[in-house]
């Protein structure tokens, strides 16, 4: 079985302590809201209470008159009220969702900020809105964005006006789906739905923006998931060139895809206030503001139709995947690329036709959220697989085994899976490890219980690693040695809590040969390294670290070269252990050393291990030289102590019109088993156990990999059972953690992480994605286990009390 631990590395596969562990347990770690500067003032936002309304009058004079209020800005006061990414910093004319910002203020204290916001007078004229996917695609729906398009022959078409976000439309056309359905013995068709979900990172969005009065550089200390992305907002809002806009990422209190657009917006707004007042401006979102303006997991409507042979072979798959994008959007057009690529599940299907697109509504926008559509899609597909199995009278695990993608198969985009693919071994191992069939039989005996019934389910999934065809997966890294033998590493990718700094230190240690505790990684400062894209798509290790691997290997070779000169042998006979270089020589017992691989030249060694090198200098095979001495020698002999690498991915080549071609460099695979108990009198779902198996290619650090898997289980439990931001005509029904419920320590199930490894040449040292895979199939597995317990399918999540009990919500 390809379980973790059979690979041979110095510092990978090891439980190395996190670089930031002590800072985090002592409270010393500085998050953006902890940052203070002399003369700092505070910023705040005035938000629309309406989902769709015209602003008919705005009067800021009373707010401006309050002593201690330094600036009150509306769209009329700034050069660029709308950001480069669709979202307005300051709205004018028409507001399109509840919480849209119409004015910003800066004042000496937070109390004065509140006074100023209350003193601004705004009159609105409320408009009819569009809120749901069904409403948005109706022929007679009012159009809420000028560039929205409509449907023609069932697919988005630019010749028709409507609410569809055309750039987010991705079709997949593989084979001939009509032919496939004609060959089918049975056709199954179902619909599924998901709802708005909140990231719920515990740190709200925060920043301090200041301008250096001497050189004019505008600096944002921000809770930015993607500092270079945030810099775009800083430059946009301040009007300064990028080389005078600097974003320093502070310790990030969770993000999961969420600290992109809202962090950009508050950095932009704070920059406007900073430039207007000449003072450092701090802006920290309240939890309620974070709920109102931060992006949500896109709600999806799925319609799937599959054609099957009697033996369970899927021959055709057709579907539509429509997501609610909210009023403004700069994410759906990237996310839906991934959603389309994965629209036919982890299965080998010859004929596929799917259409994926987003619609504009008068809601808060959908955005990136751990999985980037996959938790919703896998929920729907895996429930569908179980419903298919039921129609066929077939065991659902067998249905998966029959159709799951294996090495050599073609994905829905026609990409051949050339790398090792261990899906069948994983399914078999998970069945055995969880005692699946025995439990299935035992739980079946609870099916007639009036009170509590148990259920178990296994789901499978796969995920394209990194950016793939969304955008080029390139990035920079730099490794610098210092004269004392310590190492500084730097990267354009960011520590977001996932453990990237630690993983990168291990990868750099592997390349350099030093111990990971010699390595420090301060964090991303946009003035110190080139833009390397975003820390998203679970790309940090698999693709983002390729440049770190290459730079560290280069620096390691440079140091070894000097160590060889100091030891008197060719560098190829130098090795390093515990930060000491030594002569690596298997012939010590024969009292000779071999140098010059091609010539196999043998140099005699005396009884004390002494030999004469080429320069006639006496050396000993017992000599060692420390990293510090090597680095110091390089410094004072004028040799470079740094290596920079820019790593570019190989070309893929996905045709976005047909959705055919290579979509990702490689794929990671997951199999998750969930066990639940459903209280048939209250609808309460107790998640008993989740066993989560992941093929990570190469496990860089088992501690942090397990941490990702456990956290992913908890997040998937929330998605499956409790988490929904209820939205009624654009108004959020939950704005804080009193009514938005995600798992506490008392709610989480028993958890087991199973780590698989395989040979894969694409990722860094063979590593594959894990951050998003860790959560993407958990909600699906829990929903399927609930369906197993109840004996009825689950077609909408979260499967909260009402849905578990009644199969619907009480309006």
């Amino acid at each position, binding site marked *: 079985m390809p379980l973790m631990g059979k690979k041979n590395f110095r510092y990978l596969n090891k439980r190395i302590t996190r670089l930031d562990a002590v800072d985090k347990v*002592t409270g010393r770690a500085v998050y953006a809201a902890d940052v203070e500067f002399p003369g700092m003032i505070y910023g705040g936002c005035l938000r629309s209470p309406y989902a769709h309304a015209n602003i008919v009058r705005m009067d800021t004079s009373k707010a401006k008159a309050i002593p201690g209020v330094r600036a009150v800005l509306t769209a009329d006061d700034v050069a660029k009220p709308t950001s480069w990414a669709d979202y307005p910093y300051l709205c004018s004319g028409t507001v399109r969702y509840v919480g849209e910002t119409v004015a910003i203020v800066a004042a000496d204290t937070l109390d004065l900020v509140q006074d100023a916001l209350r003193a601004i007078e705004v009159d609105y004229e409320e408009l009819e809105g569009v809120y749901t996917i069904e409403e948005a695609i109706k022929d007679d729906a009012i159009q809420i964005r000028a560039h929205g398009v409509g449907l023609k022959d069932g697919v988005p078409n630019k010749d028709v006006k409507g609410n569809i976000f055309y750039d987010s439309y991705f079709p997949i056309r593989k084979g001939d789906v009509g032919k496939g359905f004609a060959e089918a013995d049975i056709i199954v068709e179902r619909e599924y739905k998901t709802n708005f979900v909140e990231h719920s990172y*515990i740190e709200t969005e925060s920043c301090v923006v200041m301008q250096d009065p001497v050189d004019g550089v505008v600096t944002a200390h921000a809770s930015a998931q993607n500092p270079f992305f945030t810099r775009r907002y800083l430059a946009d809002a301040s009007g300064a060139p990028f080389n005078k806009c600097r974003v320093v990422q502070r310790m990030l*209190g*969770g993000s999961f895809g969420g600290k992109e657009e809202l962090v950009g917006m508050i950095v932009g707004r704070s920059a406007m206030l900073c430039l207007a007042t000449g003072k450092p401006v701090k802006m920290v979102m309240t939890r309620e503001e974070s709920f109102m303006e931060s992006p949500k997991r896109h709600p999806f409507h799925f319609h799937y139709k599959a054609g099957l042979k009697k033996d369970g072979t899927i021959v055709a798959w057709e579907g539509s995947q429509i997501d609610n994008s909210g009023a403004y959007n700069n994410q759906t057009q990237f996310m839906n690329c991934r959603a389309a690529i994965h629209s036919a599940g982890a299965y080998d299907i010859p004929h596929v036709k799917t259409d994926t697109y987003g619609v504009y509504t008068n809601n808060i926008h959908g955005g990136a959220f751990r999985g980037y559509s996959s938790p919703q899609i896998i929920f729907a597909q895996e429930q569908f697989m179980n419903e298919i199995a039921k129609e066929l009278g077939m065991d659902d695990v067998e249905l998966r085994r029959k159709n799951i993608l294996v090495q050599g198969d073609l994905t829905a985009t026609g990409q051949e899976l050339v790398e090792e693919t261990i899906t069948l071994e994983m399914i078999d191992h998970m069945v055995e490890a969880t005692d699946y069939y025995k439990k299935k039989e035992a739980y079946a005996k609870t099916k007639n219980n009036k009170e509590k019934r148990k259920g178990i389910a296994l789901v499978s999934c796969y995920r394209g690693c990194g950016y793939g065809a969304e955008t080029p997966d390139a990035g920079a890294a730099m490794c610098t040695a210092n004269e004392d033998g310590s190492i500084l590493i730097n990267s354009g990718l960011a520590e977001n*809590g996932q453990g990237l700094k630690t993983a990168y230190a291990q990868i750099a240690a592997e390349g350099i040969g030093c111990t990971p505790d010699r390595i420090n990684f301060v964090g991303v400062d946009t003035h110190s390294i080139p833009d390397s894209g975003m820390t998203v798509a679970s790309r940090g290790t698999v693709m983002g670290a390729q440049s770190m691997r290459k730079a560290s290997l280069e620096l390691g070779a440079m140091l070894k070269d000097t160590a060889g000169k100091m030891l008197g042998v060719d560098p190829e006979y130098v090795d390093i252990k515990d930060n000491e270089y030594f002569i690596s020589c298997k012939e010590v017992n024969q009292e000779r050393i071999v140098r010059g691989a091609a010539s196999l030249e043998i140099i005699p060694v005396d009884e004390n291990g002494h030999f004469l090198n080429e320069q006639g200098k006496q050396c000993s095979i017992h000599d060692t030289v420390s990293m510090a001495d090597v680095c110091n020698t390089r410094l004072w002999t004028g040799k470079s102590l740094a290596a920079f690498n820019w790593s570019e991915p190989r070309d893929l080549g996905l045709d976005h019109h047909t959705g055919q071609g290579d979509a990702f460099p490689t794929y990671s695979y997951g199999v998750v088993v969930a066990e639940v108990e459903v209280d048939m009198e209250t609808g309460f779902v107790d998640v008993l156990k989740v066993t989560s198996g992941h093929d990570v290619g190469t496990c860089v650090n088992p501690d942090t990999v397990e941490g990702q898997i456990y956290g992913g289980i908890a997040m998937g439990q929330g998605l499956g059972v409790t988490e929904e931001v209820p939205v009624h005509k654009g108004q959020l029904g939950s704005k804080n*953690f009193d009514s938005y419920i995600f798992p506490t320590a*008392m709610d989480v199930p028993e*958890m087991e992480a199973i780590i698989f490894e395989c040979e894969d040449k694409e990722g860094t040292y063979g590593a594959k994605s894990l951050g998003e895979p860790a959560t993407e199939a958990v909600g699906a597995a829990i929903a399927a286990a609930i369906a197993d317990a109840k004996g009825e399918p689950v077609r909408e999540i979260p499967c909260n009390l009402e849905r578990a009990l009644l199969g619907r919500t009480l309006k």
Partner: protein
Amino acid sequence: MTLNMVVNRKPVSVEIEPYARLLDVLRTQLKLTGAKEGCGIGECGACTVILDGETVDSCITLAASCEGKSIETIEGISDGDQLHPVQQAFVEHNAMQCGFCIPGLVLSGKNILDKYPEADRERIVEAISGNLCRCTGYKQVVDAIEDAKDKIDE
């Protein structure tokens, strides 16, 4: 008004507004930023401190109500570079990711072991159930607190 309290074993006197929250006094006036604000309504526990031996949410604790009381924050539980056994166990068990909730979780873990040195897993889980964490799934956190049990000097 003047507030007199003991913070991390040292007496302090601060001028506060009568409506000030303990969290703001700690973070803004005493510069103890280890306590974090996550929700402002006493739900997430990121602002947890120990007040006269009980964990409280400092975001919903009126500072004025702390007159004459003793407060322990995350900054006060280690001895110089010597981490408290609960902190050390968090480090060893990788019981953190983003770290924002960790000061609160460490204090809840320390306090339950102060009160019940033999606390079992169930009691530990209950003791930290007021501390929301979005990253870890709590498993390594509970493992760490359990492990620290045997390492605390009486």
